[in-house]
Each structure stands twice: as structure tokens, then as C-alpha cells.
């Protein structure tokens, strides 16, 4: 008995120890970025990344705001990520419902053709997309950043459709008998039951949009609509980078994502457990 209990305790300790090490390895780069952001420029390069920033200074942050339009970058990114997230929630729900429940000719081939788009890497569509936006004279506008992604992605539609299919059809049938139409069913039955997956979709979309660099880099060329990733990336030089500005910028750019995660943490964990998707 006693040895068994000790064995269990050792096992538990080992598991937690391993988890702690894993957690530390994952979070260390972020902590080092944050730490370095508080170092004065004169010691930034001469000390190791893990040497604590003593004395800490806010001067890098002040410089970041004085020399660069950091608030502008964050506002632009929030607008773009916000509109895309809301748009994707609306349109993905409608598309997913159509693919999951509505009966129309060619539904399956259409769905699989749509899903096949997931296999096309973004880099392949980059130049065609640029050409389209260029012809529509939308380069260097918010519309160029928003339009390609606001109507949902195959991944999002697949995610929500699979979830919709787990909701018993009987619920819908019962609602229909009570006189509910398609809209009412979608709004009153499906949506309330799909909160975890929609929260997941919202988080994934927001985070992806926030982190996206390549398309915003190509599509914008002025500070009027420059997003945070493009703004931060521009701080890297050909050889030398202004690390004392780059690191606080990266740390600041990360904060909204941490906030989003903390806000939706419960939903994210639950939906991963529910769908088995990550």
C-alpha cells in the first residue's frame, strides 16, 4: 500500500516536473523578449537574454511611441482583425449550416471542392490576389486587407460544419414542427449550442489575422493602414536591427493576444476536447 502511494506521488511529481519544464521552454522566449524590452540600449547587446533588466527602463517604450506610430499600428490591426473575425463568424456559420443541414444539389462536391482549397498554400495565391486587388485599385486600403478573408476560410467552415453535424437533427425537427424557419433554427437552436466552437473560430481568426505578415506587407505601403506585424518587421535592418525598439514592439504586439487567450481560454480548451482538433 505504502509503496504504491509513494509510487503514485513520484509519478505525479514527475509529470508536473515535465510539464513545468515544457511550460518554461515554451514561455521562455516571450519572457526574454519582455525582459530585454526593459533593458537600456547600452546593455541590451552586451548582456545575455536571460540576464534580468536591472535597472529597468521605460525609455525603449517611450522611444517606440515617439518615433513610430505604434498606437496607429495597433488601431489598424484591431480594425482589420475585428472586422475579419466578425465577418468570418457570420459567414462561416451560414456556410457551415448550409453544408451541414441544407439539402441542395451538388452540396457534397461543392463542399469537398471548397475543402480542397485548404491544400493550396497561401504563397501560391499571393500574386493573383495582388493582381486582383491592384486591378480593383484597392492596394494600400483596408479593403485589400479585409476582403480576401472576411467571408470565411475553408478551415473555419470545415470546423463549424463538423460541429453542427454533432448536434442532433431531432432538435431541429422539433423546432420545425413548432413552426421555426431556417433562420430561426440557426439563430435559436444552432448558435446557442455552438458557442464553444464559435469562440474557437473567433480566437483562431483573430490570432491568425493579428499575426499575419505576408499579405499585409504586400498590400499596404503607407503608415495610414500599416498593421502591427508589418510595422514591427520594418524595424529589422539589412544587417543591424534596432533591437531596443524591436523587442518592446514585439512585446506590446503580443499583449492583445494574451488578453484574447485569457478571455476565451475556457472555450478553447473545451472545444479542443470536443472536436479533437487543434
Amino acid at each position, binding site marked *: 500500500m505504502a509503496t504504491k502511494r509513494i509510487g503514485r506521488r513520484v509519478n505525479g511529481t514527475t509529470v508536473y516536473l515535465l510539464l513545468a519544464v515544457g511550460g518554461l521552454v515554451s514561455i521562455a522566449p516571450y519572457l526574454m523578449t519582455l525582459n530585454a524590452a526593459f533593458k537600456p540600449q*547600452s546593455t541590451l547587446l552586451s548582456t545575455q537574454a536571460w540576464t534580468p533588466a536591472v535597472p529597468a527602463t521605460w525609455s525603449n517604450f517611450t522611444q517606440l511611441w515617439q518615433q513610430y506610430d505604434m498606437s496607429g499600428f495597433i488601431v489598424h490591426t484591431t480594425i482589420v482583425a475585428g472586422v475579419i473575425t466578425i465577418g468570418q463568424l457570420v459567414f462561416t456559420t*451560414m456556410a457551415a449550416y448550409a453544408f451541414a443541414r441544407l439539402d441542395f444539389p451538388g452540396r457534397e462536391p461543392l463542399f469537398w471542392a471548397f475543402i480542397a482549397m485548404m491544400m493550396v498554400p497561401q504563397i501560391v495565391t499571393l500574386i493573383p490576389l*495582388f493582381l486582383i486587388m491592384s486591378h480593383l485599385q484597392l492596394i494600400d486600403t483596408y479593403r485589400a486587407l479585409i*476582403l480576401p478573408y472576411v467571408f470565411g476560410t475553408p478551415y473555419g467552415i470545415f470546423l463549424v460544419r463538423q460541429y453542427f453535424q454533432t448536434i442532433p437533427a431531432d432538435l431541429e425537427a422539433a423546432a420545425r414542427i413548432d413552426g421555426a424557419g431556417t433562420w430561426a433554427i440557426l439563430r435559436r437552436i444552432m448558435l446557442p449550442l455552438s458557442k464553444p466552437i464559435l469562440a474557437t473560430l473567433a480566437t483562431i481568426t483573430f490570432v491568425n489575422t493579428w499575426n499575419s505578415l505576408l499579405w499585409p506587407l504586400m498590400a499596404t505601403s503607407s503608415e495610414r*493602414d500599416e498593421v502591427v506585424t508589418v510595422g514591427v518587421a*520594418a524595424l529589422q535592418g539589412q*544587417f543591424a536591427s534596432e533591437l531596443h525598439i524591436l523587442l518592446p514592439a514585439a512585446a506590446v504586439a503580443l499583449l492583445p493576444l494574451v488578453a484574447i487567450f485569457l478571455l476565451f481560454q475556457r472555450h478553447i480548451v473545451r472545444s479542443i476536447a470536443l472536436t479533437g482538433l487543434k
Partner: protein
Amino acid sequence: MFRRATRKTLALATAAVTVVGLTSACGGSSGSSGGTVNLTYMIWQTSEEAAYQQSIDVFEKAHPNIHVTIDLVSWAQYWAKLQTSAAGRNMPDVFWDHLEYLPELAKEGIITNIADDVKSSKLDLTQYSPKLLAEWENGSTIYGLPKDWDTIATIYNAKDLTTAGMTPAQLGSLSWNLTDGGSFVAALQKLTVDQNGKHPNQAGFDAGHIKQYGIALEAPNGQQDWWDFGVENGCELQDRAYGAWTVSSAACVQAMQFEQDLMYKWHVEAPGTITNTPNAAALPQILAQNTAAITFDGDWDLDTYQSSLPAGSWGVAALPTGPKGSGTVFNGLTDAIYSGTKHPAEAWQLEEWLGSAASEKIVTDSGTVWAAIPSLDSGFITAWKAKGIDVSAFYQGSQGATIGYPLTTSGTAFTNVVLKDMNQVWLNQMAPQAAANDITSVSNAAVANGD
């Protein structure tokens, strides 16, 4: 059925309205509005933005009908962005151009040959450094007015130099050779220390635990390392501009071999595990952390050394001389005009301003870059003297034997293969001759294929 159809139409209509609302939500794109011409000027160096903005402010005052937006895109993404926008025929009107990319851009016909503009504006091209101008001219074409130049020099940690009993003047007058390494290797031996305080030429030196290397060199293509040893050994990368690659010649291979020997025979240079790009720490960081006592670097990094090392703790010296004398890599940029710009006249006005002595003086006097107009170069030296650094070694380098950036349409192939192979050489996993043969054959094949 009817009701369902109506609802579907309604949904479609809602979607359509959203799209329309979205597409008309924001302001228009660049071009001309209300008589003002908007030009975009794309650059890649953060540290130079302020000086160029200052110059453009003056330009805008003189040309109230032109508004210039600087688009700062880092080097890592600059060329990808440029090539995408070239494919979309929607490029910045004026942008920085580099010799590594000039031949390909010229071949694709997306940069303007400004020869006619130069003639009609009666611009005096002789004001520019002839060596610099020559790289951007090809027969009767000229693809941009030179805006600056750069060379490579030695940067040292002053304390390490004092500890080794050496003066900056001594450091600046070293020489190397292929037989015993010369005074350069002897000096690096003094600057290299293992954890027991022993030097590589002393008994009991532990090459496995070196505390401070004499030198650390780092370059993705060779500009700050073996090209410099190469020019001092009579190595030519090409038989002529736009010609065949000759990297496998004895003079070039010897230069590579000399550097590999610095790492693995003399144990005075930090090995590839520390300096291989793109993942290595930047040279200023290597010097700041005392991983090495000296390095070779371009003047573009001066600002970083100045901000990350305490005042008076570093300095600049001339490169060592080699078997064929002194030499350094000499390179410079121009401003290019997009051939499809909607405002060619205004773009030329901007180009002419940026290439003028007035604009180059603003930029050079701020200590940002050396000017392409030689009479202005003293301004750069003065600006750095005020910060306590003597940068004249870069200038001396530019006056001596130099090697330019290779001019070729096979630049992409060369850049890729040279990074891959030389990283192996610096890890001691490939012989310099084998690397040089591979680099030469791959790059020459690219020349033959015309890509």
C-alpha cells in the same frame, strides 16, 4: 417553398450590402488628388529613415505639388515585396536598388533607364565617384543616380586591444600571408584566450574551451569575410561584369582556405557554429558580449556599435593587407525609378533631388551614410568625429584596391548556393575547393540558363 426562396434572396441581399458597405468604407489609394501628386519611396534601412525624411521635407517645400511617402520595408521582405508588386505592375515610384538585384530588375524591364533624363536635365555625372557610377552604367544605359557607398573595415573592442598590449595603429597595419599567417595571425593569437588564460601559440592551450576569440566574421555571401581576403589575394569573382563566375580560381580558394585555417588551424576565429548566418548573433552583439575582440564590418553598422557599446570602448581600423596588398569590398546603392510609374516627370524630379549634392549633404552630414559625391565625404568623418569615432579607415579603403558586388543575372542562384556551401566550410564539413567548384558550376549554369 416560396418563403424559403425569399429568405435566401434576403440573405444574399444582406451579404451583398455588407460587401458594398465594406468596399466603400475607406479612403482611396495613392495617385494624384486635387493637383497633388503622391509618390511612394521605398527604402529598407530603419536607421536611415530619419535623414531621408529630412531631405524629403526640403524637397516637398520646393515642390508643393508633390507629396512623398516613405515606405520602410525591412531587407528580409524588401525584395519579395518588390517582386510581387512588379508582377502586379503596382510598384513604388522610386525605390532603393542594390547591385545584387539590379541585373534582374533591368532584365525584367521594370526599372527606368534614366540616360535621357540625365541628358535633358544637363546633370553633371562627373560629380559622382567614377568607380561607383561605373557599376550602375551598362553601355548607354544608367539605372539610377548613386546615393551612397560602403566599404568594410576592422572594428575592435578597445579593452581587449589594451589587454593584449596592442594599439589601434598597430591593428591597422597588420598583414597576412598563406604560409605562416603573418602579423595578422600573430596579433589574433594574442587576442585569443582560453578559459585558463592561455593563447593558441602557448603550450597547454585548450581549443575546446576558448573564452574569447581573436576575430569573428559573419557574412551571408562573403562581403564581410572571404571577399575581403579574396581581393587582397587577387581573387576575382567573375571574369568580367555579367560574365562567367571564377570563384574556383586558386586566388579565391586560397582566401577561403585562409579563413577556414583561422578557425580550425590557428584557432583564432570563432567557428561557424557561432557565426553562420542567418541564425547567428549580429556582429555588434558578438563584439558587445566579448565573444571576439575584433571583426570586419560595413559602415552601415556604425550606429549599432555606437548605441550598444559604451563610449570609447570600440573603434575602427584598416583591414589587414594580404599577399597582393590592401583591399576591401566597395558597394553602393542608387535610387531606381519604376518604369511603369504614373508620374515619370515627378519621379525624376525626386530622383534628381535625392542624387543632388544638397540632398546627399543632408544625409551624409548626419553621419547616416557616405555620400556618392566624393567632395561631401568629409562631412561623414566630421559627424563621427563628434561622436568620438575615427571612421577614416572606411574612406582609405574606398581609395585603394576594391572589389565590387558581382554583376550578374544569376544573383539569386549565387546567393543561395554560396550561403549553403560556405556555411559548410565554416563548420569544417566541406573543403574550400569543393565549395568553390560547386558555387562556380551552379552559378555558371544559372548564367547559361538565363535565370
